[in-house]
């Protein structure tokens, strides 16, 4: 069973001005980060149970915490996966989803099973690429998109050659 209390507790501790403004010693700042990270785990279980119940299917939900640096083992190795996007705003939003993937072409379907436009963009000066597609998510709700790899096709590079400016 999940539990949001540890994360609540960590957030409560982090109301201290040292946590808000970074004026603590390093080992204290590290401990603040540890408390937050320990709080995420049981909260993710809670979220998974809620999503299983609301979506009607019991999944092994994964939370990729390093999407901002294009790291997500599940999307980078799987030939097919599900993307659930939860929108906490009180209004519908369109949101560009970016997920690190392997060097393939993918088909993305929206909750009604319709294929939506997607792209695989190579990330310059790195050998990784990201899958992009625009998701429409209802107010205070979630949408589930499914992604499947198209066998035998590779993404075309979209990078226009690097332009090394004249160094002054």
């Amino acid at each position, binding site marked *: 069973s999940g539990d949001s209390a540890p994360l609540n507790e960590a957030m409560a501790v982090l109301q201290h001005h040292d946590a808000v403004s970074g004026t603590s010693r*390093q080992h204290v700042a590290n401990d603040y980060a540890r408390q937050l990270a320990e709080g995420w785990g049981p909260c993710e279980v809670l979220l998974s149970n809620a999503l299983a119940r609301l979506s009607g299917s019991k999944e092994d939900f994964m939370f990729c915490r390093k999407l901002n640096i294009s790291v997500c083992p599940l999307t980078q190795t799987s030939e097919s996966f599900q993307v659930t996007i*939860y929108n906490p705003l009180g209004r519908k939003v369109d949101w560009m989803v970016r997920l690190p993937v392997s060097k393939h072409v993918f088909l993305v379907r929206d909750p009604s099973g319709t294929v939506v436009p997607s792209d695989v963009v190579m990330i310059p000066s790195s050998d990784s690429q990201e899958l992009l597609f625009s998701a429409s998510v209802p107010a205070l709700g979630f949408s589930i998109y499914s992604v499947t790899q198209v066998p035998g096709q590779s993404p075309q590079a979209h990078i226009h050659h690097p332009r090394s400016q004249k160094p002054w």
Partner: protein
Amino acid sequence: SRVLVIQNEYIRARFDPDSGLLMELENLDQNLRLPVRQAFYWYNASTGNSLSSQVSGAYIFRPNRQQPLLVSHWAQTHLVKTALVQEVHQNFSAWCSQVVRLYPGQRHLELEWTVGPIPVGDGWGKEVISRFDTVLETDGLFYTDSNGREILERRRDYRLTWKLNQTEPVAGNYYPVNSRIYITDGNMQLTVLTDRSQGGSSLSDGSLELMVHRRLLRDDARGVGEPLLEEGSGLWVRGRHLVLLEKARNAAAGHRLQAEKEVLAPQVVLARGGGAPYRLE
């Protein structure tokens, strides 16, 4: 032409062909065009001087001179254009890069900056800023938010509630920015939304800056007892600034709606799929 351009239905951004820096922003929808030069700079952290022994540290921001130094005059750029995104990757140095991005239907320019590990081998603490310089005649005024709610007017070298004798021309004009900072000439408004709280200011007319990262070598004698200096090679930080150029009279609608989307951004949860059907009963 050699000018690098990315655009969507609403926004066009041009980059200087020689330096690779952003040089102009256009709001195609409202027919606005503003030369905007954005670059990264760093303040050299003070270690105390003849005026005051105060050191720049965790509690105190105190650069040792008024002018920051450019991280780099130019950037190596990569242009990526697909149906779903147009982006310019700018590489300023080994510890400073940025991706300037536009998605279809987006009314702001997204600047995803990555800064760090800040090198301190030269013995200098560094306080890194992203600065936007424009021709807007702002008359010493700029605006910052208070926890995303009230917008406060700020005037350079001035305090509303007491007669300020300004002794720190830079730090004395820095204010907390929780979600946005903007400048306006009454006609056009340039707003920068942040994805976290940062220090910000406008130290000259038409200019606005946000501090994105710091790495200092001295303790500022205010109680922490150690410098703001991560162990090892140091942290590198990635964040986003969303830049909006709008008519002053309708700018609030733009930045308020976008800031809500930024603060309450959708959360992504992944799964392999094909799980067993699940019913509470």
